[in-house]
C-alpha cells in the first residue's frame, strides 16, 4: 500500500507539471497583459511606462524563460508575487484557502448526507410517492446549473424571506462570530451542494437497487438480522462503493462550481481571487490557483482509490 501511494505521488509530478505548462502558455495568449490591465493607455507617457513595467515584471522575456523562472522559484518553495499588489502568492493563497475549503467542505457534506440518505430511502421505497418526488427533484437538480440555483436561493431566502445574507463571509465591521459566519455560508453552500446532492442521490438509488437484489442480502435476511443491520451492513456497505468513486470524481467539478458561486456571493475564497487575477492578467496568482487546485484534484483521486480498497477487500493495491 505504501509503495502504491509513493508510486502514485511520483506519477502525479509530471501530471502537475504538464498542467502548469499548458495553463501558463494558454494564459499568456489571453489578449492584453498585466500592465495594460493596470495602466490607462490614455496617459501621455503611456508607451514608456508600459515598457518599463513590462521590464520590471519580466513580461518582455520569451515565454519559456518566464515559465522557467516560475518553475525555478517553485522548486525553492516560492510561488512568486502578485503583479497587482506585490504580495507573496503563497500568502494570498493561505489567507483565502480556508474560506474556500469551508464552502466546498460544507457543500460536499450537504451533498453526501442528503444525497445518500435520499437515495437510500428512494431505493428502499421504490415506486412509492417519496421515490417519485425524490426522482423528480433529482432530475430538476441535475438540470439546473448551480449559479442559477444560487440566484433562485437568493431570490427566495434573501429577498422574499430575508433569512440569510447574500454576500461575504461575515458581517463587515462586526467581531467574528460562528453564527454570523454560518448564516453567510448557508446560501452559497446550498447552491453549490444541492446540485451535487441530486447527482449523489441518483447514483445511490441505482446502486442500492442493484445491491438489494443480491443473494447475500437474502442470506442476511435468512439469518434473522434486523432490517436495520441488513440495510446498513449488507446493503449500504456494498452500495456505497461506486458512490465513493462518484464523490471523488465530483471534486474537480466542485472546484469549478465554487469559482462561480464565490463570485455570485462575494465569498472571499480562492475562486474569487482567481476571477480577479484573470481580469488583471495576474499570472503568478493564476498559476498559484491552478497549481493548488490541481494538487487537490490529484489528492482526491488518490484518496478515492484508497477509500475504494478500504471498502472492498477484493481490491488490493501493491
Amino acid at each position, binding site marked *: 500500500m505504501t509503495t502504491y501511494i509513493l508510486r502514485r505521488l511520483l506519477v502525479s509530478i509530471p501530471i502537475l507539471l504538464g498542467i502548469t505548462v499548458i495553463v501558463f502558455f494558454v494564459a499568456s495568449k489571453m489578449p492584453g497583459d498585466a500592465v495594460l490591465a493596470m495602466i490607462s493607455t490614455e496617459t501621455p507617457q503611456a508607451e514608456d511606462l508600459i515598457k518599463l513595467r513590462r521590464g520590471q515584471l519580466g513580461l518582455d522575456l520569451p515565454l519559456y524563460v518566464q515559465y522557467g523562472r516560475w518553475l525555478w522559484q517553485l522548486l525553492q518553495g516560492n510561488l512568486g508575487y502578485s503583479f497587482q499588489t506585490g504580495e507573496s502568492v503563497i500568502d494570498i493563497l493561505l489567507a483565502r484557502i480556508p474560506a474556500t475549503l469551508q464552502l466546498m467542505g460544507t457543500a460536499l457534506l450537504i451533498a453526501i448526507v442528503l444525497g445518500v440518505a435520499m437515495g437510500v430511502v428512494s431505493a428502499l421505497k421504490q415506486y412509492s410517492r417519496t421515490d417519485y418526488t425524490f426522482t423528480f427533484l433529482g432530475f430538476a437538480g441535475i438540470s439546473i446549473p448551480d449559479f442559477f440555483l444560487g440566484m433562485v436561493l437568493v431570490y427566495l431566502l434573501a429577498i422574499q424571506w430575508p433569512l440569510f445574507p447574500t454576500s461575504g463571509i461575515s458581517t463587515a465591521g462586526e467581531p467574528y462570530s460562528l453564527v454570523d459566519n454560518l448564516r453567510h455560508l448557508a446560501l452559497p453552500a446550498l447552491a453549490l451542494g444541492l446540485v451535487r446532492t441530486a447527482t449523489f442521490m441518483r447514483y445511490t438509488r441505482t446502486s442500492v437497487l442493484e445491491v438489494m437484489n443480491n443473494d447475500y442480502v437474502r442470506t442476511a*435476511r435468512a439469518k434473522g438480522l434486523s432490517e436495520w443491520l441488513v440495510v446498513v451492513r449488507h446493503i449500504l456497505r456494498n452500495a456505497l462503493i461506486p458512490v465513493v468513486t462518484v464523490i471523488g470524481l465530483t471534486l474537480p467539478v466542485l472546484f469549478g462550481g465554487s469559482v462561480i458561486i464565490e463570485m455570485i456571493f462575494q465569498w472571499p475564497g480562492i475562486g474569487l481571487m482567481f476571477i480577479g487575477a484573470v481580469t488583471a492578467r495576474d499570472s503568478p496568482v493564476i498559476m498559484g490557483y491552478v497549481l493548488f487546485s490541481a494538487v487537490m484534484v490529484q489528492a482526491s483521486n488518490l484518496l478515492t482509490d484508497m477509500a475504494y480498497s478500504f471498502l472492498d477487500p477484493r481490491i488490493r493495491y501493491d
Partner: protein
Amino acid sequence: MPSLLEVRDLVTRFYSEGAVIHAVNGVSFSLDTGASMAIVGESGSGKSVTVMSLMRLVRFPPGRIEGGEVIFEERDLLRLSEEEMRRIRGNRIAMIFQDPMTSLNPVLSIGLQMTEGLRAHLGLGERAARDRAAEMLSLVGLPRPKERLDDYPHQFSGGQRQRIMIALALSCNPALLIADEPTTALDVTVQAQIVELIQGLREKLGMAVIWISHNLGLVAGVVDKVAVMYGGHIVEQSPVDELYEHPRHPYTLGLLKAIPKMDGRDQGRLFSIDGMPPDLRRPPESCPFAPRCIYAVDRCRQALPPLDELGAGQSVRCWRADEVAALNVAGAMR
C-alpha cells in the same frame, strides 16, 4: 406427536408488470422432527418460492403470500409478527442457497458474517461467538478455522464457501434446515461431498432437512420422502422407495427417466420432457401437466384433479393415476 412442520394450502403470487404470477398454488406437506424430504421439479415449478414462503422471505413488492398456514413447532408462522419471525429465521429454521459464490457478502469477513447471527439469536458476546463460529467451521471440515475467520469470501473456493454457508446455517442449531439446490453450482465431485456432509450433520445434530433439487438421483439416498412439484402444485408425494417403485404421476415418470445415469457426466440439470412449462400468469383450471402428458384424456383438460391420498404416505394429483401405474408396470415388464 405433532409434526415439526405442517404446510397447508400455501398460496404465493407475484405481481409484476401488470401480470399476476401464480407461483405456488395451494401446496400442502408435512415433515416430522428430524426427518428429511426432497422437493423436486423442473425450473420454475415453484420450489424456491415455496420454501422462501415458509421463512417469509418473499418480499412485497413483487411477491405476496396470499393464503394457507405454515405450522412450525405448533405456531402458524404466517401469523407471527415480523419481530417474532425474525427470531425464527436463522435460529429455528435455517437455509442454504444454490450459489455459494454470491450468497456470502463479498465485503465482510467470514467471521463477521458467521457471528452476527449467533449474537442476534444466542446473545453471545464477540469472543464466544467467534469461538462458536470456528467450532462450526471445523465441523464442516474447513482447515485452520480460527485463522480463516478474518478472511473474505473471495479467498475461498466454491466448495469451501458452501461449507461455510452450511456452518453458518447450522450455527444456531436449527430444528429445520432448508437446502435450496446447495450443490447445483458446484463441481460434480464436490456435489456428493456436500450432500454427505449435510447428511452426516443431520444425523449428528438431529435436525430435519428439506432438500430442493433438480437431481433426484443425488438426494434419493438421503431423504425419507419426495414431493414432486409442477406448475406451483405438488403433483405427487411419496416415500422415496415407493416413488421409485410405483410412480403414479406421469410427470414423476418423466423425472425418473431423466435421472442422470451413474456412468459419468451430469446431464440432469434440465429434464427432457417434451413441451413447455405452464404459463404461470394464466394457470389453467385443468391439470397443468395435461398439455405435455402422453396419457392425457379429455377430463384432464377440463378439471384440476384433487390430491388423492393413497395411504402409506403417498398422494397424487392425477385423474388417471391408477391406469398410469398399471401401464408403467406393464412397460417395465416388457
